[in-house]
């Protein structure tokens, strides 16, 4: 059996940080989730978003119950790095910065040696300024930047094998001057100091206090309805845009429109107002969908469906 996917839980929400896992969840398990991360290059909008993928609690519960995924308490998975690990990380960063600057300089010298290349006044001025600055730097020594000691003392109590706080590093790292891009990895999986401990079942996670869903009848009903629809092969998305709990798609939401807007009724005898039938029914029909009333029976653990449409007369 394939390795279970790690669902990283933070503040009772399940996130997926690895793109490959997101792909597997969608294509193999028809669980879509929603991307919630800001894109650094497109920050002032929320139409296009990036990692992490956030799952509905019902989605996370289903994946863990089906042993497709396990829950990881993300905050406690990040340890304080040892001084040697930190030193390696900083050196890698320094090398990356140096490489970038070297490439930039190489590109600059190629452009300068090409006389046919037309240059705007602005470009010429900037090149002159760059050359002047480089000349200045060569004559002055680069300032030494001492690096701070190990951070985050709070975590070390959980991991006594880590080095004591306040130990100075062997050498100071000098970051070069010149412009370079600092890359911050989205996922913590490749960090040396990330060691997830996974909770294999919901019960264990509940006891550990990192996951509580479902705790009420309403939440159990949602899990039950979601699971039943999922087992029938449907893809589910959030229903807020159409006045329901879920949108129910016959296939991948990127390819299909949803046929149904589903709402969850927590018990067979739960009070239903006729006005709800009117509101759900008319909105569903008005958007080329039908409304699905999904009734959960907590005793029999069975879901019963009623499809509601506007009659078209009256």
């Amino acid at each position: 059996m394939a390795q279970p996917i790690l669902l990283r839980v933070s503040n009772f929400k399940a996130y997926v940080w690895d793109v490959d896992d997101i792909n597997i969840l969608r294509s193999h398990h028809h669980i879509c989730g929603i991307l919630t991360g800001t894109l650094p290059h497109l920050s002032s909008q929320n139409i296009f978003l990036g990692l992490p993928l956030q799952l509905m609690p019902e989605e996370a519960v289903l994946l863990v119950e089906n042993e497709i995924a396990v829950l990881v308490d993300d905050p406690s998975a990040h340890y304080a790095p040892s001084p040697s690990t930190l030193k390696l990380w900083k050196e890698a960063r320094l090398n990356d910065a140096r490489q970038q600057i070297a490439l930039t300089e190489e590109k600059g010298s190629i452009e300068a040696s090409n006389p046919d290349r037309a240059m705007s006044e602005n470009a010429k001025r900037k090149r002159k300024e760059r050359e002047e600055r480089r000349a200045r730097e060569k004559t002055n020594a680069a300032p030494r930047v001492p690096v701070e000691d190990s951070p985050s003392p709070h975590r070390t109590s959980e991991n006594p094998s880590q080095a004591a706080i306040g130990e100075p590093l062997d050498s100071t790292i000098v970051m070069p001057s010149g412009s370079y891009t600092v890359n911050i990895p989205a996922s913590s999986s490749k960090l040396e100091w990330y060691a997830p401990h996974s909770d294999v079942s919901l019960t264990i996670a509940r006891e550990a206090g990192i996951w509580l869903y479902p705790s009420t009848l309403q939440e159990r009903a949602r899990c039950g309805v979601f699971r039943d629809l999922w087992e029938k092969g449907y893809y589910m998305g959030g229903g807020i845009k159409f006045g329901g709990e879920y949108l129910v798609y016959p296939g991948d939401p990127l390819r299909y429109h949803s046929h149904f807007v589903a709402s969850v009724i927590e018990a067979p005898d739960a009070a239903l107002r006729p006005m709800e039938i009117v509101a759900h029914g008319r909105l569903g029909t008005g958007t080329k969908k039908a409304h699905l009333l999904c009734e959960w029976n907590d005793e029999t653990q069975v879901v019963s469906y009623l499809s509601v449409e506007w009659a078209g007369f009256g």
Partner: protein
Amino acid sequence: MQNHPSYPVLSQLLEKYPATGGALFQVYNDLTLAQKWIDVEVLDLPACKRAAIKGKRPTPDTDRVPSICIVVPCSLSESISASWLRAAFTSLDPLPSEIYVAITSEDTSTVYYKISQGIVKPPV
């Protein structure tokens, strides 16, 4: 109400289910007089503690046979439930594929919603 032409047809069930009498009266008249349904009958639906109405809905094409539909009246002020809706299905013989819930309001507006059992796709 007793002087109304619809009264004789409805009198027995109005007496049996006084609480839903208003909705029954309003929906029966709407179907027969405004919606122009034909072969309209009333049925007793004890599981829902009310009368239901059966009739043939006129179709726009003249060659298609009008289908028999069941209408369950209900007032906007009532409190119903999913089990109530399913009870309407199970107490009807033969089991219909769909029923219409007719929801009445105090200003005499009547709205009809089609309820089907199971997951039934909307028409394209």
